[in-house]
Every structure is written in C-alpha cells, then in structure tokens.
C-alpha cells in the first residue's frame, strides 16, 4: 500500500523541478518544457487524490488541464516562431523590449 502522501511528494518534486527549469534556463524551448513538467505534476496529484477518495472529479479536471496545456503550447510556440522572425535568437534574456 503506497500512502497518498508519497504520490504527493513525487508530484511536488516534479513541480519544483519544473520551477527550477523556468528560472534557470535561458533557452525558450526548455522553459516551455519546464512549464509542461509543472502541469504534469499537477495532473499526478489530482489523479492521486481521485484514487484515494473514489471520485472522478479530479480526472475530469485533469482532462481540462490537458486541453488547456495543448492550447497553450500551440499558441506559445506560434509566438516564439513569430518573435524568431524578428530576432533570430532563442535567448530569453534578449527579449527585453518591454523594459521601462
């Protein structure tokens, strides 16, 4: 029997790995993928709770998360492509036109 807390620990470890990836990497694509890691971690914790409470709500929520993630990835990558046309770099630090 694996207690729920272990699933939650795994989920939070994955979440913070994703956070580290967003903060530390300068490559835009890798930052995006770190965001995906975070979303997946959330999915895991939702489904874990579902199993232990005998409900289906978490799975429906997780379904929505997946749909939103798909939409977000497509739009985000389209934005990266259009920025890339202006300035052929993927270094996040160089996208600073919105500076004060």
């Amino acid at each position, binding site marked *: 029997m694996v207690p729920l807390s272990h699933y939650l620990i795994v989920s939070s470890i994955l979440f913070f790995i994703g956070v580290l990836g967003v903060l530390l990497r300068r490559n835009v694509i890798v930052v995006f993928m770190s965001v995906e890691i975070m979303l997946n971690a959330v999915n*895991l914790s939702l489904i874990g709770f579902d199993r232990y409470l005998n409900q*289906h709500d978490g799975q429906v929520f997780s379904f*929505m998360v997946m749909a939103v993630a*798909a939409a977000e990835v497509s739009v985000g990558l389209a934005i990266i492509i259009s920025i890339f046309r202006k300035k052929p770099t993927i270094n996040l630090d160089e996208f600073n036109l919105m500076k004060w």
Partner: protein
Amino acid sequence: MEQFIFYPLSLVCIVFAIGVIVNTSPISSAISLIGMMLGLAGLFVLLNAHLMAILQVLVYAGAIMVLFMFVIMLLNLKGDDEDWKSRGKNILLASLSGVFVITLLIKIIGDGFDSAVGKPAALSETFGTTAAVGELLFTDFVLPFEVASILLLVAMIGAVVLAKTKLN
C-alpha cells in the same frame, strides 16, 4: 506489491525531469520530457485512471511533444546555453529552492497526513474507465467541456494567425 512498481517508476520520472532541465541540446530535453510523460502514464495506470493514462500518451507524448520537435527542427535551434550551470547565481538559486522543497515536504509528511487519508477507498469496477469519466464529462461537467472546445478553436486560430508569414 504496488510499491515495487511505484518507487522505480517515480524515480524514472524524476530522473527524466531532471534530464529535461539539465540537457544543453533542446532535442535531448524534448526526448527526456517524453520519457517523463510515459513514466507518468504508468503511474496513472497504477492509480486505476486508465482513460487518463491513454490520453497522457496520446495527447501529451503524441501530439504536444511532436509539436515541440517540429518547432525545434524548424527553427534549427542549437543549444547555445551551454554555460548555464556555471553561473553563480544559478547554483545559489538551485540550492535555495532545493532546501525549500525539502522543508515543505517534511511539513507535509509531518502533518499527520496519512492518518487523515490513509486507506484508499474501495473502488468500483468501473472506476477510471472511459465510460465512467465520459459520463461525468457529459452531464455534470458539460459546460467546461464545451468551453474547452471553444478554447481549442481559439487557440488554433491564434496559432495560425501568429505563425503566418507576412505577405509583403
């Protein structure tokens, strides 16, 4: 019995996730991410959420990561971020957040969480099957379902508009 599958599988997920953020080449990161997602699908199966496991593989690993690969290959992105590990600030940040995570986890475990939700509830036969989830989707949660479809439509239009080449 369950632990023998859970611990190795979760270890796999964590290792691949670390691999995502550590790799210099974006392609390697993408492949690590696929690995992590497959591991997660396994965990979902362990939790009797069969539909979500299949959807994880189909949507995430199958569609989203393929899109990532396309973009990486389209823009011909090379890894030009090799020296990120050596920056002092990064190491500081990583260690600080590591410490933070560990304290948080200790708090969670130490809170007597297990006594509250210790034993998994008895599951029905049809738990986590497509029929069960689908029934919920079309009755109680039909509004979010429809809105999600509109969201996908809007995202599709947005992506097309944004990525289009200008016609000058």
